[in-house]
């Protein structure tokens, strides 16, 4: 039974990661422009061409600016929202608010995209502006928000609700009680939410497609290559992005385990002192 479950696990991991490894392998392929099926030697040419390609770099720049801004804003708003929802006294109100905020998550992307486009077109016409970076960032914040709320809420519920009151009893002003007591407790949830928002924003295609105006993000740019052919530079770019996100995750996880280790040590020391 154990071997069967191991084989099953290996298969699942293969299924998940084989495509990425093939992509990474082919980003080092030496063949000239044509082949996505034959590996003909190691080379870094696609990487050097990638960094010289102004259009890809521009699209990447747009995507990263949008992702960073959208992740930052939606993290702040989402955390505030989660705390607000948590402190709603009326149970019924809380449920309604929770469902309303979850709606954009279950709503089909295409519906969100089209409706946002309509809204933006109408409102920008009134002002005389155009769709672009601004509308993209607003759209991305909107669909990232529920994910942040969803990852912060459980941390808030795990927290002892009396801690905040205790801090105030011990002389903390409400703001410093929040920053010194509540925030450290929910930080892991906030970080997860921020990373989720960041990655969701980076690879969003449907909503961006409708709200982008004349600005181009990376997914839209890659999609537009399909008449001619997708350049192997994109393999190189995907590899770089994959590596960057992997490093980010490792750093965050390492940091978290350091914190939990420290907390465990402090606790055992305290227990020893008591004894």
């Amino acid at each position, binding site marked *: 039974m154990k071997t069967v479950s191991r084989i099953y696990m290996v298969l699942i991991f293969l299924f998940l990661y084989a495509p990425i490894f093939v992509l990474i392998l082919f980003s080092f392929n030496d063949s*000239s*422009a*044509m*082949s*996505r*099926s*034959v590996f003909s030697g190691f080379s870094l040419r696609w990487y050097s*061409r990638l*960094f*010289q*390609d*102004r*259009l890809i*770099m*521009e699209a*990447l*720049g747009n995507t*990263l*600016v949008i992702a*960073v801004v959208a992740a930052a804003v939606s993290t702040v708003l989402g955390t505030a929202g989660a705390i607000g929802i948590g402190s709603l006294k009326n149970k019924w109100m809380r449920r309604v608010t929770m469902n309303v905020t979850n709606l954009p998550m279950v709503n089909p992307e295409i519906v969100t995209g089209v409706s946002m*486009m309509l809204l*933006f*077109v109408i409102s*920008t*016409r009134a002002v005389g502006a*155009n*769709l672009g970076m601004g*509308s993209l960032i607003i759209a991305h914040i909107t669909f990232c928000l529920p994910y942040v709320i969803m990852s912060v809420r459980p941390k808030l519920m795990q927290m002892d609700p009396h801690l905040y009151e205790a801090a105030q009893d011990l002389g903390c002003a409400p703001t410093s009680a929040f920053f010194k007591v509540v925030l450290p407790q929910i*930080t892991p949830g906030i*970080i997860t939410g921020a990373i989720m928002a960041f990655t969701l924003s980076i690879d969003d295609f449907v909503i961006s497609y*409708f*709200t*982008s*105006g*004349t*600005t*181009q993000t990376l997914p*839209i*740019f890659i*999609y*537009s*290559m*399909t*008449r*001619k*052919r*997708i*350049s192997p530079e994109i393999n190189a770019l995907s590899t770089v992005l994959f590596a*960057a996100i992997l*490093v*980010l995750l490792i*750093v*965050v996880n390492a*940091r978290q385990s350091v914190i939990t280790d420290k907390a465990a040590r402090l606790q055992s020391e305290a227990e020893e002192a008591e004894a």
Partner: protein
Amino acid sequence: MKRMIAALLSVLTLCGMMVPAFAADKKSTPNAGVTINVYNWGEYISDGSDGTMDANAEFTKRTGIRVNYTTFDTNESMYSKLSGGGAEYDVIFPSDYMVNKLMKQGMLEKLDFNNIPNFQYIDKQYRNPKYDPDNAYSVPYTWGVVGIFYNKKYVKPEETESWDILWNKKYAGKILMFDNPRDAFGIAQKRLGISYNTTDTNDWEAAAALLKEQKPLVQAYVMDQIFDKMDSGEAWVAPYYAGDAATLVGKNKNIGFTIPTKQGTNFFVDTMCIPKGSKHKAAAEAYINFLCDPKVSAANLSYIGYSTPETAAKKLLPEEVTSNPIYYPPQSILDKSEVFTDLPDSTNTLIDGLWAEVKMGGAGDTTTLIAVLCAFLVLYIGIVIYKKRKRKKEME
């Protein structure tokens, strides 16, 4: 948290450095400093890789006009973006039939040819085309024809002179087809000897019947995947645009390319137009004029691989390209070929319906699928109820 911010910031600054600043070398041209929005096909302009000309940067250098360059994948997605509002473009690159459609709907600006002196280089035969009879709205950018790629190991070149090969049972499972209705129907229409631009329902239905007949032989309906599938020998016969032949034929000695001469083929033109409401029309015309410069046209065409409508540009291209009938087929083939024009809405709806039928393989398949799913559902519910009853009995 600090480390994360630092990491993000360093990524950002890196990206910032990678995006080279626009050449701010402004000359005293009237439109210097203006930014125009250009909407072109993906991979459809010389981008400066491998020491070639970076066309957009060169344009900015010459005129001081900045270019916000974005790309699309099909005429239809370009059209929906344009008609959806919220995006204002100054130069777009629709194909023949799309020019026709945009023109009819009043979505194009009339060009001021005084601002496009380089139009003189466009050869006579590409002026006043069927899709823009007065040549008031469009300037040709590239052109090409559709032909057949084949694997020389398995397919005889003579066979590829007719579209019939795509219906040959000998190559069942080794045939690829276009994944867009106009091109796919076009092949069936030429085989039947019908015009691409027919509005007769019977004609379209006949073509659809032919495509349905072909479906069991087709390995896949694809676009750019044909390069890999043909290169690896996974497929043996595939129709595609001639301009893309070069890279494939040049690299893989087993791949051949023919333009079917018996029944004729599709001649397509991608053009440059200015959509209605452009705020920088003069700057947009300067851009079109720049792309018509024979040197620029030659640089772009050697990047794209399609054919140039300018003899002056053709002279600047390498001899092995211009003498190659794949790129510049003889006039006799061009005379037999036909260009797409816009069809009335009723015909377009008909085509969409027929195309869906062809690709779905008839309604039969979905019904069986639904029936099977329903059977499973009923079985599952039955099992659940049975188990519950059993448990109840045991409880009692």
